[in-house]
C-alpha cells in the first residue's frame, strides 16, 4: 500500500468515526433559522422557541404536563411559560439551565448554547407569551453586607452553605454561588428554580435582597487574615491546624517513649 493510499484510508476512517459519534450523541444541538442575522428580535425568538423549546414547553408556552415524545423522539414535558416573564427566561438561558438534556435532570449551570442575541430574542418572546415580571436590577452597592449575612443565614445557608459553597437537599443539588451574577441571584430568589423555595417581596424586600446579593458577592473575596484559607469552608481549616499540631505532639510522645536502637 502506498503512502498516499494509507493517508486516504486514515482520513476516511476518521470521517466515518466522526459521523458515528455524531449519531450516537443524544440530540442536544441548537436548531437555528437559516436567515438568523436579518430576522427581527421577536420573530427570531419565536423561531428559536419553536425549534428548541416547544417540545417541552408547548407550542405557545402552555406547558406539557405529562411526558410525550417530541421532535427526534426525545421525551418532552415541562412547565408552562405563560406569565413567567423575561425574568425566568433570562435566568434559565444565561445559566445554561436550558435546554435540558433529559426532562428528569435538575437544571444545573452548563455551557450556554445560545448567543447573546438569541437569548435576548427568546427572552422577549417568552415575555410576549403572557406578560410576567421583567428582569430585576439589583443594587448590591446599596446593600448592607452585615444585614446580608444575617438574611443569608436565615433563608439561604441551610442549602447553599454559609459562604455560598453549595450543598444538597434530598432530591437535588444546591449549586455553589461563586459564578452567579447579581441579576441571577435576584432572579433565583424570586423564582425559586427547581426545588428552591420562592421568596416574595413580603418575605424578602428588594432592599433586603440588595443586602443578600452584596453578601453573596462578598463571599468571593473574603477578608482573610492570612495563611491558607482552604476555601473558607469553616472550621475545617482550624481542624487541620489542630491535626497538624496533634501529629507533632504524637511524634514528640513517641520520641520520649521510644528508645533508639543500639546497633
Amino acid at each position, binding site marked *: 500500500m502506498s503512502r498516499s493510499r494509507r493517508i486516504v484510508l486514515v482520513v476516511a476512517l476518521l470521517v466515518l468515526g466522526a459521523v458515528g459519534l455524531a449519531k450516537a450523541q443524544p440530540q442536544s444541538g441548537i436548531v437555528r433559522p437559516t436567515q438568523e442575522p436579518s430576522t427581527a428580535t421577536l420573530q427570531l425568538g419565536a423561531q428559536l422557541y419553536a425549534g428548541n423549546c416547544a417540545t417541552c414547553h408547548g407550542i405557545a408556552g402552555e406547558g406539557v*404536563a*405529562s*411526558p410525550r415524545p417530541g421532535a427526534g423522539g426525545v421525551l418532552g*414535558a*415541562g*412547565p408552562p411559560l405563560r406569565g413567567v416573564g423575561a425574568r425566568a427566561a433570562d435566568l434559565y438561558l444565561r445559566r445554561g439551565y436550558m435546554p435540558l438534556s433529559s*426532562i*428528569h435532570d435538575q437544571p444545573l449551570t452548563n455551557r450556554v448554547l445560545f448567543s447573546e442575541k438569541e437569548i435576548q430574542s427568546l427572552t422577549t418572546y417568552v415575555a410576549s407569551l403572557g406578560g410576567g415580571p421583567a428582569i430585576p436590577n439589583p443594587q448590591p452597592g446599596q446593600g448592607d453586607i452585615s444585614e446580608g449575612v444575617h438574611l443569608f443565614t*436565615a433563608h439561604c*445557608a*441551610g*442549602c447553599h452553605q454559609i459562604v455560598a459553597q453549595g*450543598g*444538597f*437537599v*434530598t*432530591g*437535588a443539588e444546591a449549586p455553589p454561588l461563586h459564578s452567579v451574577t447579581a441579576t441571577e441571584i435576584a432572579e433565583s430568589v424570586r423564582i*425559586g*428554580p*427547581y*426545588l*428552591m*423555595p*420562592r*421568596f*416574595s417581596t*413580603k*418575605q424578602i424586600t428588594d432592599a433586603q435582597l440588595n443586602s443578600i446579593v452584596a453578601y453573596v458577592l462578598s463571599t468571593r473575596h473574603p477578608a482573610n487574615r492570612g495563611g491558607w484559607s482552604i476555601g473558607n469552608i469553616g472550621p475545617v481549616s482550624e481542624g487541620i491546624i489542630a491535626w497538624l499540631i496533634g501529629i507533632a505532639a504524637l511524634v514528640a*510522645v513517641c520520641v*520520649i*517513649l521510644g*528508645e533508639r536502637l*543500639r546497633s
Partner: protein
Amino acid sequence: MRIWRWLVALATLLLGRRARRRAQAEQEQRIVPEGRPERRAETVVLVLLGIAALFAIGFIVTYAEFSPTGIPNELLGICLGMALAFIAAALAVVAKRLVVSEELEHDYPEEHPEEQEEIAELVRESGSRITRKRLLLGAGAAAGGALGVAALTPALSLGPLWYTDPLDTSPWRRGTALVDENGRPYAAQDVEQDTFYTAFPQGADPEDIGSPVVLARVDPSQLRLPASRAGWAPLGIVAYSKICTHAGCAVALYRKPTFKPLEPRPAFVCPCHYSTFDPAAGGTVIYGPAGRPLPQLPLMIDGLGSLRAAGNFSDRVGPSWGAVREGGPK
C-alpha cells in the same frame, strides 16, 4: 484502739509478704540484675493515675449535673481528654522509669528451648523493681474503671432514668400567637405557598427547644392529615416543630417542585442527616434516619386574620430517646 490494731496487723502482713517475696527472688538465678527500686517514680505514677480517675469521675458528675439538656460539651471534652492524657502520662512513666529494659544480643533462638526460657524469664524479671505492685495495679484499675464508667454514662440518656422534663414542656397553648423572629405576628394571608417561614410563640423564650416551628402553606387539596387532625391546617397552613426528631438539629431546608409532574413533592429537610418530612401528611418521614414524624402544631386564625396555636404539639418535641413515645407534651 481497734483501728490501731487493725493497722498494725495490716502493716505486719504487708511487710511479711514483701520479705518473703524478696527471699524468693534471691533464690532464683537472675539474668537481668534487679533494678534499683524507684519509689519516687511509683509515687508519681500513683498520683497521675489518681488525677486521671478524678477527671473520669468529673465527666460522670458533669453529665449527671447538666443532663438532659445544656450539657457543656467543653467540660465533658476536657474531663475525658484529661483522664486519657493522665493515664498516658502514667504509662509513660512506668515504661521509662519502672520497667527494666535489657537487650540480649543473641540471634533469634529457634531450636534452643533454654534460650527461649531465658527470654521468658527476662520478660518476667523486667517488672521486678516495682515495690508497690498491688497499689499500682489498684490505681490503674481505679483510673481505667472510672474511665470505663464515664464512657458508659451517656447510655443513660437512652432511657427514662434521667430527668427529661424540659423536653416535655412546650410553651405553646391554645391561643398563643405565632410571631416572627422580630416579634411581629404572622397574618395568615402573608403566608405564601412554595416557601417556608420560622415562627415562635409570642412572649416565650425563642431558645426553648419547644419554641421554634416551621410554617408552610400547602395546597389544601394536597393535604393528607390524619383524621384526628382535621382542622389543624386552616387555608392549608401547617406548622411543625423545627427541631428534627432524629438528632435535634434545626430543620432549616425546604424544597418545593417547580414542575410538579416530574419533581419531588414539597418537604422539610434537616441539613444534618437529610431526614425529610412531608408537610402535607402530618410531618411523616419520607426519607432519612428520623424515626418519628415532626410534631405538628394545630393552627387557627383569629378575628384579625393572625395565626394562633389551637393547642399543643401532637407529640413530644426534640430528638428521640427510648421512652419518647410514652406520654405527650405538657
